[in-house]
């Protein structure tokens, strides 16, 4: 029966279309679910429409919006013949409220002066539309609209609360724990303020979350809450034991609608019809069990998590004094910020500088993740082949629950001889030094080389001592050979005495010359000097000490006869007497000369 009517209507519709008759077409989905929003459209194919009415809507459908009107028109010119078409569409948005099969009644309108009726549409409502998670855009939008409550209504503990969750309940020291504060709300929460207390024995870092909180809908205890993760913390427990995060009080501000707005009040105070209500929300305390790390190895880096280490050298062949950079990268997840710098055992001859540490980590919900880069700058000072041993990194693996050692490769460095790094020192004194342009070694020794065996030393050798001995022997021979002369020379007095006669003879000869010249005064002086000098020399006595007495004494001591002694003394006396005596000077002089000569000759013969 119904089918037949639909068929008839459709046929009629087709006939009308064919005749370009004015008509109304209803359009709606055939099947919807409870709670689902859908569109109902009525299209009239003319612009001249008035008195559009729809029939009685079944109570299973709720009109959410409508009618909204939209019109369209089009013109066509084909081979000079103009055709035009236009239409008006009335759109309703409906929502189904209960299951069943319902028929939407026909709508009526007056088009071009004629009363026309639309077709009826049958809609089957079945099933439940899914909630927020269904992804139904319209419904979600509606859910996210603030569920504003009236002012003065109480906000119960189930309307607004905070749940705290820890990623792990039992960890080892240094193992990161993620603490999440999540807000569940049925009210219009606009602001939330709290302060995280400083916790003892734990290193806390807040995970940066977007400033703009976007709520999402979550079913909890049968109710649909708008939820948001308000804050997250990564905690690195530093001490074994119980880690207690105390209950936190959040100060929230909830907007409520004020129904009893005084219009004047609203006008002058900018009252918006809303009231801000302060609400304290208490987040529960959390306890986390922290286990101590097992016996730490000596070279434990302090790292807990999962790590890897790698090293690279920018060059393996350098000249001395040229710097090398060794890059050690510790990568992984865990307490990267709290690890010790890996120790690199550079050769002792390298000058090491403090490494440059580059932090390329980011805080994630797993802990700190990324790389820490250590750049070690070293300067090899001298040439040679060196080895930089592998770098060891010991950490505690939270997955296998034991210590693990990761190592890098070792490097071999070949250091060449560097550039001669001569430093110039300037002197700022007024005077300028002579500038030495360059200093260089002296030239080689050319010509023949004196080659000898290594252990041959002349000093102390046989030939040395031989030479010394030869000289000594020659010396002794000479001394022995010329002993007499030596002995003679050794006695100064004897030598003088030996020469006394010679000296006296010389003086007498001079006296003879003076006698011939007739210089009587000088003659007597010379003769006297010869006589006195002779005895003085002979007996090694100064002339001034001589007297007649001691001469006699000395001469007699040497065995000279008294006759000769008196002759000698007579000669002296006569010499002194004749000097001033009158008479023939020439005869006197010759007499004195003869006497003196005879006296000296005689004594010389006697003494010998």
């Amino acid at each position: 029966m119904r089918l037949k009517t639909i068929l008839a209507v459709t046929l009629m519709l087709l006939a009308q279309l064919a005749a370009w008759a004015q008509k109304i077409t209803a359009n709606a989905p055939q099947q919807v679910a409870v709670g689902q929003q859908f569109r109902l459209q009525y299209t009239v194919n003319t612009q001249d429409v008035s008195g559009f009415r729809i029939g009685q809507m079944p109570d299973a459908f709720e009109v959410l919006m409508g009618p909204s009107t939209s019109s369209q028109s089009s013109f066509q010119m084909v081979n000079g013949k103009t055709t035009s078409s236009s239409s008006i569409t009335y759109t309703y948005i409906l929502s189904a409220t209960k299951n069943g099969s319902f028929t939407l009644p026909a709508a009526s309108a007056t088009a071009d002066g004629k009363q026309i009726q639309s077709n009826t549409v049958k809609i089957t409502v079945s099933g439940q539309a899914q909630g927020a998670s269904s992804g139904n855009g319209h419904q979600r939008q509606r859910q996210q609209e603030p569920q504003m409550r009236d002012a003065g209504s109480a906000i119960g503990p189930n309307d607004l609360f905070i749940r705290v969750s820890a990623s792990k309940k039992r960890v080892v020291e240094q193992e990161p724990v993620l603490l999440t504060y999540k807000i569940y709300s049925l009210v219009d929460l606009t602001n939330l303020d709290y302060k995280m207390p400083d916790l003892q024995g734990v290193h806390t870092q807040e995970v940066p979350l977007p400033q703009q909180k976007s709520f999402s809908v979550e079913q909890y205890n049968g109710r649909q809450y708008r939820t948001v993760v308000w804050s997250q913390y990564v905690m690195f427990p530093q001490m074994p034991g119980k880690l207690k995060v105390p209950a936190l009080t959040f100060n929230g501000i909830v907007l409520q609608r004020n129904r009893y707005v005084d219009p004047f009040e609203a006008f002058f105070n900018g009252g918006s019809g809303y009231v801000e209500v302060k609400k304290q929300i208490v987040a529960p305390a959390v306890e986390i069990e922290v286990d101590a790390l097992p016996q730490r190895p000596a070279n434990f880096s302090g790292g807990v998590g999962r790590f890897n280490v790698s090293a690279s050298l920018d060059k393996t062949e350098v000249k001395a004094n040229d710097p090398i950079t060794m890059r050690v990268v510790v990568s992984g997840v865990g307490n990267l910020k709290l690890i010790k710098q890996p120790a690199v055992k550079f050769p002792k001859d390298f000058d090491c500088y403090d490494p440059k540490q580059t932090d390329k980590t980011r805080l994630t919900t797993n802990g700190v993740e990324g790389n820490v880069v250590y750049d070690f700058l070293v300067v090899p000072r001298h040439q040679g082949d060196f080895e930089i041993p592998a770098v060891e990194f010991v950490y505690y693996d939270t997955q296998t629950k034991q210590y693990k050692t990761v190592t890098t490769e070792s490097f071999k460095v070949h250091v060449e001889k560097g550039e001669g790094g001569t430093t110039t020192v300037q002197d700022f004194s007024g005077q300028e030094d002579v500038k030495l342009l360059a200093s260089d070694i002296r030239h080689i020794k050319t010509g023949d080389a004196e080659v000898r065996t290594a252990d041959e030393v002349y000093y102390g050798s046989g030939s040395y001592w031989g030479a010394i001995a030869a000289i000594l022997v020659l010396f002794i021979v000479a001394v022995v050979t010329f002993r007499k002369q030596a002995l003679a020379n050794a006695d100064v007095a004897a030598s003088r005495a030996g020469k006394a006669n010679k000296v006296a003879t010389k003086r007498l000869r001079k006296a003879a010359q003076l006698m011939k010249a007739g210089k009587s005064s000088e003659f007597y002086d010379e003769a006297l000097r010869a006589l006195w000098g002779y005895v003085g020399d002979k007996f090694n006595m100064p002339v001034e000490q001589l007297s007649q007495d001691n001469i006699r004494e000395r001469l007699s001591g040497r065995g000279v006869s008294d006759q000769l002694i008196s002759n000698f003394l007579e000669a002296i006396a006569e010499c002194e007497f004749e000097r001033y005596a009158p008479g023939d000077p020439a005869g006197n002089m010759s007499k004195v000369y003869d006497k003196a000569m005879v006296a000296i000759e005689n004594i010389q013969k006697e003494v010998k």
Partner: protein
Amino acid sequence: MNRYIRLISLSFIICHLSFVNASALTKAEADSAYMAGNYQQAVTLYDSLLQQGVSTELYYNMGNCYYRLDDMTHAVLYYERALLLSPGDGDVRFNLQMARSKTIDKIVPESEMFFVTWYRSVVSLASADGWGRMAVAFFLLTAILALLYLFTNRMWMRKTGFFGALVMLLCFVLCNIFGYSQKKDFENRRGAIIMESAVNVKSTPAHDGTDLFILHEGTKVTIIDNTMREWKEIRVSDGKRGWLETKQIEVI
């Protein structure tokens, strides 16, 4: 008989001449290699010459070659060897100082009393041989002057002879003392040069001994304990002491 002696002496002279010629030739070759800038070749030539015996000139030239090759360690070693043979040679001293100034370790010698320094510098003016020759010469002069004193009868000659002989005898004694000291140094060979680029001086003659300080190639050390074969106790001129492996140093 006489003829035999003549023959032998002749042949000896010929041998000697040829030997001198050969060595002169190769040394001239080495010298020309040096002058042409072929220092490596010059090193090998001088080295082969040094197989026949030691020589100041060869050591000195060898040192020059190494200096030109920028090997200060060997340069210092050979200059030191040359200096051991001819302590008074100015060229050797100068070049040694040049080479030393290019080595790494700057050692400030221990301060000592000025007369000790003077004594050392006087002693190192000549080698043991030089002092020996001087001693013989002084002894000869002593003898001549003594004879002069004994056998002349002129007073000034006798006086000259007497005092001159005394002075010469004193010189002879001093020459003997210096010569003896130089001979000791030469025979004991206590000086050594560090040949490895860097060595750790140990506190005990063992590999696990504490590292006292680091010395670098080209530094001169004095061996003070030569009794062990593998290890030597050394002293640096600034007074530091420690043990080094024998292979790390080369005796001058």
